[in-house]
């Protein structure tokens, strides 16, 4: 449980940076070399490598060497774990909001009733 929790911390920490999120969305389109990944950003290759190391530690990215070229690919499993978190939080609120749906319906019926009584009184 502790390890699981640490892994999730690493995932959220890795996802908290906009450049790293942009790198991940690039990789969602398929494998990229480090140079390709660096292109859209106004940052140096060493800076991109540093972001990639963070993503690698969080197991979000796998780097493979092909000759002199380093290729990166997305590893989606930790993202699914993070999704599970959001999903549980979502479910908790969805249950509340379904009660709110029912309450809003009831409020509507009551308002209609009140209006009708008013009209009858006139």
């Amino acid at each position: 449980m502790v390890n699981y929790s640490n892994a999730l911390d690493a995932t959220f920490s890795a996802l908290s940076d906009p450049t790293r999120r942009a790198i991940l969305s690039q990789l969602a389109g398929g494998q990229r070399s480090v140079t390709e990944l660096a292109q859209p950003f106004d940052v140096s290759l060493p800076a991109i490598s540093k972001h990639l190391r963070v993503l690698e530690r969080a197991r979000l990215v796998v780097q493979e060497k092909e000759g002199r070229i380093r290729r990166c690919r997305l590893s989606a499993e930790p993202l699914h774990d993070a999704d599970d978190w959001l999903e549980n939080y979502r479910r908790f609120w969805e249950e509340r909001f379904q009660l709110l749906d029912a309450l809003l319906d009831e409020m509507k019926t009551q308002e209609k009733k009140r209006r009708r009584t008013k009209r009858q009184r006139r």
Partner: protein
Amino acid sequence: MTNAKTLQVTAQGDREIVMTRVFDAPRRRVFDAHTKSELAKRWLLGPPGWSMPVCEIDLRVGGKYRYVWRRDSDGKEMSMGGVFREIVPPERLVATERFDDPWYPGEALDTLVLVEQGGKTTLTQTMLLASREARDAVLKSGMEKGVEASYDRLEEMLVGSK
């Protein structure tokens, strides 16, 4: 139609959790359901098996609100409250929130925005936490509450089958 009602939850930036959902009602009613205690206590419940004995709302800027939930099986209580910062009926409500027995560090700031179109209301609730750690702790709690709720249900089932 059913899709429009689906609740969206996203972690935004480092410190925010954003929820969006559509309700089939004008925003005046949705606003009332959030700000009148006799209405709020009907839906702002805890996990199954918990009741809400206290729901006090003093709706004015600087006014306080306080919620207490109680687990009926053993009387365990959980309570939170805060202060209203901004009140613009029926479209905007900003309030602080803090649990009496804190399970995430610092105070959070909740912003409720209601947008009405064609008799339907889009609710956006943003929770801004003091730190990234606090935000992640809140998301983690969803998991714990989920687990706790399923244990409670299991218990009910086991008691029922005797």
